[in-house]
């Protein structure tokens, strides 16, 4: 899929661990892993909103289109 999820990049920039993010936004570590590994088929607006809020970023910082 040409959509790349850059959650790990944003986590590194914010110096936040995956565990901390999962606790803050209330989704499981397994789902964060699916997102990080690019195995996710879709992302809910609510999840995206929560991630953007916690990482203080824009959706474009997390999602990238690589044709």
């Amino acid at each position: 899929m040409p959509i790349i999820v850059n959650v790990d990049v944003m986590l590194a920039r914010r110096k936040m661990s995956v565990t901390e993010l999962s606790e803050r936004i209330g989704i499981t570590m397994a789902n964060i892993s699916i997102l990080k590994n690019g195995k996710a088929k879709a992302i809910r607006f609510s999840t995206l909103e929560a991630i953007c809020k916690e990482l203080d970023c824009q959706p474009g910082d997390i999602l990238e289109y690589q044709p």
Partner: protein
Amino acid sequence: MKSVNTLTIPALLCKVLYFFIAAATVFITVIFIHLQIAPSYYAGWNAELMTPKSILSITTFERWSADLYNESTLLSFDKIKKTSLYFNYFRVLAILYFIFLTIKEFSKIIESVKLIETFHQRNILSFQKMFRYLLATSILFGVTIVNGQEANLYSYSIQVTPLILSFAALMMAEIFKQGNQLLEENQLTI
């Protein structure tokens, strides 16, 4: 909860069918053994019994090798050759075994639906297996080869009921495959 109650009836029906298959196997085996011990007892039983006659069957081929007018009396159970007898016995056993396997797969599907794992990969495989078993049942059911001491009977009829059921199972496998894809998509939506 409601679906679980609804599924109790087919689950129970499967168990009843298991019993009938077991009973039929025992009955056929007893007749098979008794026929070899006392063949004269079966003098009145015509071998045409082995040719399935139902509304939903199409006889495509039937051939009697005897030239006499009243040829059917030449092929009573007691006059059937041993090889033919064994062939038909194992053919019937195979049919019962395939029906048993079909019911077993169906029971597995019912159990998984009860556990709300309806669109699991194993249900797709179960439906595909059911297709193969029912197709085999349809083929075996249609074949009649009876060799007697004075006459032979060869016939082939297409059994519509198991054929329709087999293709219904194949269709269900495709539907469940799509359901499985949707389930996977739903599970991978974060």
